C-alpha cells in the first residue's frame, strides 16, 4: 500500500512540471507588460526598465521558467511581483481559509445530497424523487455569486442574523458554505441517485432481501457502501475544484481565500504568485485524489487488493 502511495506521489512530479509550464506559457502569452504593471501607473520608461531588470523579466521566457523551477525545486516559491512578499507565506495565509470553507461546503453538500439521493433512488419516479431531483438541479443551475448576493440580502440585510462577509466565527461560514454547497450538492445528489439505482438492482441486494434483512438495513448496510464509490469520486473532485474555484463566492463574501488571490494575481500578471497558487492547488488536488483512491480501498476490498498488488 505504501508503495502505491509513493508511486502516486512520484507521478505528481511530471504533472507539476507540466502544469507550471503550461501556466507560465499562458501567462507569458497574455498581453500587458508585467514590468509596467508592477511599476504602476505613472511610472516612466526608465522605471519600467529598472523593474524589468530587477525581476529578471528581460530574459527569455524559457530561462525565466527554468530559473523559477530551479528555485521551486529548492523549496523557494519566490516573492510576489506586486507585493514583494514571499509567495509561500502569502499563500499559506489564505489557503487554509479556502480549505476550511471548502471543507464545510462539502459537508453541507453531502448532508443535503446523500439523503435526497438515497430517498430519490429508493422511490424512483415518485413525487419525492421528482421534487428532489428538480431541487438538486436548481442547485446546479443557479449561478453561485447570484445566490450568494441573494443570501446576503435576505439573511444579513433583511433578517440581520448572519454576517454579510468576512471570516469571523462560525456564523460567517454559513452563507458561503451554503452557496458553494448547493451547487455541489446537486452533482453529488444525482450521482448518489444513479449509483444507488444501479446498486439496488444488483443480485446481492436481492440476496439480502431474501435473507430477511429489513429494508432499511438493506439500504444502509448493503446498498449504500457499494453505491458510495462513484459518489466519493465526485466528492473528491468537487472538493478539489472548491479549493481553487471558489473565486466568485470568495469575492461576494469577502472571504480571504486563495481563489481571490489567484484571480487577482492572474489579472496583475504576478507570475510567481499565480504559479505558487497553482502548484499548491495541484498538489492538494492530487493528494485529495489519492485520498479518494485510498478511501475506495477502504470501502471496497477488491480495490484494496489491486493496490496491494501494484
Amino acid at each position, binding site marked *: 500500500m505504501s508503495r502505491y502511495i509513493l508511486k502516486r506521489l512520484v507521478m505528481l512530479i*511530471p*504533472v507539476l512540471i*507540466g*502544469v507550471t509550464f*503550461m*501556466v507560465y506559457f*499562458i*501567462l507569458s*502569452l*497574455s*498581453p500587458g507588460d508585467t514590468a509596467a504593471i508592477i511599476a504602476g501607473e505613472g511610472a516612466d520608461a526608465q522605471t519600467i526598465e529598472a523593474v524589468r531588470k530587477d525581476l529578471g523579466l528581460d530574459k527569455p521566457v524559457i530561462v525565466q521558467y527554468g530559473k523559477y523551477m530551479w528555485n521551486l525545486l529548492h523549496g523557494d516559491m519566490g516573492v510576489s511581483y506586486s507585493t514583494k512578499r514571499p509567495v509561500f507565506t502569502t499563500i499559506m495565509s489564505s489557503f487554509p481559509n479556502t480549505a476550511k470553507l471548502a471543507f464545510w461546503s462539502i459537508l453541507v453538500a453531502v448532508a443535503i445530497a446523500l439523503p435526497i439521493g438515497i430517498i430519490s433512488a429508493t422511490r424512483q*419516479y415518485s413525487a419525492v424523487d*421528482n421534487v428532489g*431531483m*428538480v431541487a438538486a*438541479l*436548481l442547485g*446546479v*443551475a*443557479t*449561478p*453561485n*455569486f*447570484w445566490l450568494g*448576493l441573494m443570501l446576503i*440580502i435576505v439573511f444579513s*440585510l433583511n433578517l440581520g442574523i448572519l454576517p454579510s462577509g468576512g471570516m469571523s466565527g462560525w456564523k460567517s461560514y454559513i452563507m458561503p458554505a451554503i452557496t458553494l454547497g448547493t451547487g455541489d450538492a446537486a452533482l453529488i445528489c*444525482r450521482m448518489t441517485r*444513479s449509483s444507488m*439505482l*444501479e446498486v439496488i*438492482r444488483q443480485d446481492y441486494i436481492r440476496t439480502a432481501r431474501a435473507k430477511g434483512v429489513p429494508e432499511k438495513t438493506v439500504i444502509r448496510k448493503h446498498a449504500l457502501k457499494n453505491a458510495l464509490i462513484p459518489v466519493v469520486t465526485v466528492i473528491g473532485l468537487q472538493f*478539489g*475544484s472548491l*479549493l*481553487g*474555484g471558489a*473565486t*466568485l463566492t470568495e*469575492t461576494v463574501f469577502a472571504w480571504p481565500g486563495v481563489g481571490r488571490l*489567484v*484571480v487577482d494575481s*492572474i*489579472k496583475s500578471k504576478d507570475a510567481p504568485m*499565480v504559479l505558487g497558487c*497553482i502548484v499548491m*492547488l*495541484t498538489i492538494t*488536488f*492530487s493528494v485529495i485524489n489519492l485520498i479518494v483512491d485510498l478511501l475506495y480501498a477502504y470501502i471496497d476490498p477488491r480495490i484494496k487488493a489491486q493496490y496491494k498488488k501494484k
Partner: protein
Amino acid sequence: MATTNNSAAQAGTATKKRGQFKETWRRLKKNRMAMIGLTVVVFLVLISIFADVLFDYDTVVIKQNTQIRLQGPSAEHWLGTDEFGRDILARLVHGSRVSLSVGVVAVSISLVLGGSLGAAAGFYGGTIDNVIMRFMDILLAVPSLLLSITIVSALGPSIINLMLAIAISSLPGYARIVRASVLTVKDQEFVEAAKCIGANNFEIILSHIIPNCMAPIIVQVSLKVASAILSTSGLSFLGLGVKAPTPEWGAMLSGGRAYLRNAPHLTIFPGIAIIITILSLNLLGDGLRDALDPKLKK
C-alpha cells in the same frame, strides 16, 4: 397466417430502419421532466433563431434611453429596462443567441478535440494513451474555472476567446468520457468480429466504436452546454465576459448586481433565464441518459 404475419412486418420495415432513434425517442417521450426540458430548449433555440424578428438589434437591443432607465416591468417593457434604459426582454432574447452559441460552440470544440484525443487514447492504448492522458491530467489538475480565467486573461475577453477558454478547460472531461466508452466498446466482441472480417482500425473506429460511444457523449454534451453557460456568467462576473454592448445573460446578470437592491429585476430576469435554460438542459440530459441506457428501462 404466415402470410399475414409477413406483410404486417413488411409494412413495418420502412420505419424500423431508424429503430434506434425511434426507440430512444419513444422512451424519452414518456419522461415528462425530460419533455419539459426538451420543449424549453427547443423554445430557446427558436427564440434565438428568430431574435431579430422579435426585436431589432440596433434600435431596441443596444440603443440607450437613459430617461427610462431602471424601470420595473410594465406593459411597454415587459421585463423592465436596464441601467441604460434598454429593454431587458429584448436583451434577453438576443442574449440567448450569445449564451447558447457560447455553450454550443465551446462544447463542440472540446467535444471534437477532447473526443478525438480520448478516442485515440482509448483505442490505441499504450504510449499514446499514456501521453494523451498525462496531458489531460495536467489540464485537469488546474480547476477549470481558474484555467478559463487564465486563458481568457491571456487572450483577452471576446466571445471567441471565451468559447476557447471554456472549451480547453473542459477538454479532459470529454477525453476521459470518450476514452472510457471506447475502452468498454473496444473489448466488446463485435469489434473483434469486425477485425475478423478484415476491417482496419480506421474503419473500426469510425463505423463501430464511435456510434456506440454516442450515448454517454450526448448526455455529457447536454449537461456541458449548461455548465458552459454558467462558466460564462462566472467569467462575466470577473469582468472577463463578452464585449459590450453585446447582450449576454451572464454579463447582464453580473452587470446588474450593482443594482441588486434598487432594481432587482436587472439580475432576477437574466438569473431566471439562466436557471431555466440550465435546468431544462439538465432535465433533457438526464432524460436522454435514461432513454439511451436500456439498463434503466423500467
